[in-house]
């Protein structure tokens, strides 16, 4: 066990865990931030996507010991009023079915739009192909990302 000081959603947080513990479980088990989901544990599905200094990162394979003072953002902290352009667009397109994958999808999409404010279809597909949606909401996700880009650039 070891103590770690983490910066999560703009707040300082401290946990005392095995240094190998993936951030996914630190968030879910120790900080009760359960918006970030477990889907595979091997960086194949994207359900656990968080931002590490604004960049989409799979938290299931990110040991807490390597986070250091890098800033972590989870779905709960993406926007104060849950009104990030991506979240707004998600509601407008009524994207979710079961909803389980959607936090990860939204975090990947938000990261994409940060680095590329007007992505092409191909760029959206490339950035989002690490996120599985078993319910098959891909067409709506893509449309919502285009709408989010418009909201963001307006």
């Amino acid at each position: 066990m070891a103590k770690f000081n983490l910066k999560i959603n703009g707040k300082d947080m401290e946990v005392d865990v095995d240094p190998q513990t993936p951030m996914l479980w630190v968030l879910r088990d120790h900080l009760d931030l359960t918006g970030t989901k477990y889907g595979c544990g091997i960086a194949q599905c994207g359900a656990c996507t968080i931002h590490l200094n604004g960049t989409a990162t799979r938290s299931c394979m990110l040991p807490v010991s390597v986070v250091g003072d890098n800033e972590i953002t989870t779905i709960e902290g993406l926007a104060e009023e849950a009104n990030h352009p991506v979240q707004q667009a998600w509601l407008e397109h009524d994207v979710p079915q079961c909803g389980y994958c959607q936090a990860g999808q939204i975090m990947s999409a938000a990261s994409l739009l940060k680095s590329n404010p007007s992505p092409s279809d191909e760029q959206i597909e490339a950035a989002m192909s690490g996120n599985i949606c078993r319910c098959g909401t891909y067409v709506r996700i893509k449309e919502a990302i285009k709408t989010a880009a418009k909201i963001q650039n307006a």
Partner: protein
Amino acid sequence: MTVLKTKLGRRSFLKTSAAAGGGLMISFSWLASCTSSTTKAEVLAMPEEWFELNAYLKIGENGMTTIFCPNPEFGQNVMTSMPMMIAEELDMDWKNVVVEMAEFNTALYNRQFTGGSQGIRTAWNPLRMAGATARHMLKEAAANAWNVSAKDITTDAGKLIHKASGKSAGYGEFAKSASALEAPEEVELKEVKNFKVIGNSKKNVEGKKIIKGDKLFSLDIKKEGMLTAMIAHPPAFGLQLKDFNAESVKSMPGIVDVFSFKTYNDEFGRNFFDTDTFPEMVAIVGNSTWEVMNAKKALQVEWEKFSEQSFLMNSWGGGDKIKVQVPAGLESSQSHMAEMHKVASKPGTQLRKDGDPEKIFKEAVKVIEKTYSAPFLAHNMMEPINCVADVTADKAIISAPTQAPGFIEPAIADRLGMTVEQVEIVMSRMGGGFGRRAYCHYMVEAAVISQKVQKPVKLMYTREDDMTFGIYRPAYMATYRAALDENNNLIGYHVKAGGIPESPLGRGAANRFPAGCVDNYLAEEWSIQSNITIGAFRAPRSNFLGGVEQSFLDEVAEAAGKDPIQFRLDLLKRSKEKPVGENNDYDADRYAGVLELVRDKSNWGQTSDGTHRGVAAYFCHNSYAAHVVDLKLVNGTPRVEKVTCAMDCGVVINPDAASNMAEGAIVDGIGNAFFGEMTFQNGIPEKSNFDRYRMIRMNEAPKAIDVHFVQNEIDPTGLGEPPFPPIFGAVANALYKATDKRHYNQPFLSKDRITLG
């Protein structure tokens, strides 16, 4: 006009305060505000007091209305569509409705089960009735107060109006007095043409919580003193627990207990859904997920082959329990294939016969014969199997993603030594289900573990545990034969289908199209025993038959020199005018209707350069679906560009959400047609996570899906399953156009099958 006899229970509590009501406030103004700059709609605050008019709804003193969704939610959006049905007949303003998941209580609610695409169909009358009776009671209460006849009172969006006297009031004003009245004996329901809520798209009532990452799933539950549990199950079908070394891991950090347990009591008569695959497993219990995962990895377990096993199952409708045999052995996909070919070459069990098929096949000018196969499939819901159980001496609270709480309740009670009344099931939102969560062995497992450690327990399967646990879609094979005469008329049709361990032709599928369209028709089935467990998978059986039959008909149409849509329409015309045989299980007009609609909407007959088209249609789970797939080869790899879909499921409750459901089924079908496959070697499932089990991703999904609904006033039927089966056929037919080769074995893009480009 529909008049219904009412039969409604009342919840045990009559009034609840706003705080106890849970405060599931959905701010519709907020939803509106993010899509446009329109001024905020007026939304009522949460009331001080609720008055319950029946088990489905309660109204606050200010008119705010809570509607309870009786059915489990797994993404089909019943939490929105079912309350819409109630709000319609209540004549309630949707923006002042909040929705809560109902408690599991079979005395109060009708069919709390999600499966078979039957939710909306079976709720259609009871839910509208719940709304209509409440509206009737409100009218009566107002009539009493105003000293007028209830007949002269009309309602409009949450208001009671008496025109002659000019009196009007909101529902809230009479909620209390209405709640004290008896429910009417019968109620009158609205005509479809007068619907205001139904048929107008409403946003998902849980949408905002989903995009915020709120705690909606049972995996997100945290209880005081709760422990985490995982299981170790045999790595192969055909193996059972022999021994394990608990001591080696009990001392690992955070580990509380390690023990073996049996899921069901030996004498317990199981129901059909009480599949457990591995009767005895090892539980690892500890403080946190990561610690338990590590202990699970370190745990040494010895497994051994079992000889033939059996368990007791209740027979349908009571009577003596049946002994179900489970064969021994370590099975492999290769031997499965060989065995299926062998059995398929022998005569099967006859299910339907019209005319003289043997004779006609001898006389035919042309005979087309093709054999199709499809592998086992894992459900792979994104939320892995899990359950939170809190078992104390006299009570068990079990929260889980479950499609079928009623099926598993007796097993939980029996295993805990409790009565069903002591077991309380909470239906949490499911992160997908697809049939898998009708088999709720994990709820018993979590309960057993909680009882043993005397603490609340969150049981979670790792992705690997989930994917290798069985309850798969069976492996199937079907041989089709068609006989054509000199004028290319279809004069004989023969299907022989089977699977491991069940045939896809059971439960009336032999009476589906094209049965009834062909004078000489034969359907036979066979099956091969296995110890690999199976379960319902989105449109069971149809998910194979629909695809391969439609692929075969495409080939027959081509051999007959006919357009594939016209070929089907001609057959349907025949069955409408002069049906062959009895019990034909489809409505020829509605079937033709979706084909005509998809022909129209897809501009059938016109394709752009490099686009290859395939069409298919199917009827199952009471609804009709037809698809046209536009496919391109990109560097030799097929990519579906666009799908045009036509559905007939009667009245559409929530159109945009209905489209979403059809879109999902289409994507799911394309994914499984291209990639879906579970294989076995020595009983071991060879894929245990998404690195090897290939799932469709965004770059492989269609770029556009265009969903159209036949407009009619027929009572609504299901939508989750019907669009799924035909997409396999439409993809196969488009793939043929693209590659000049017919594709008979799913998945089409498997490495060891077809290499394209």
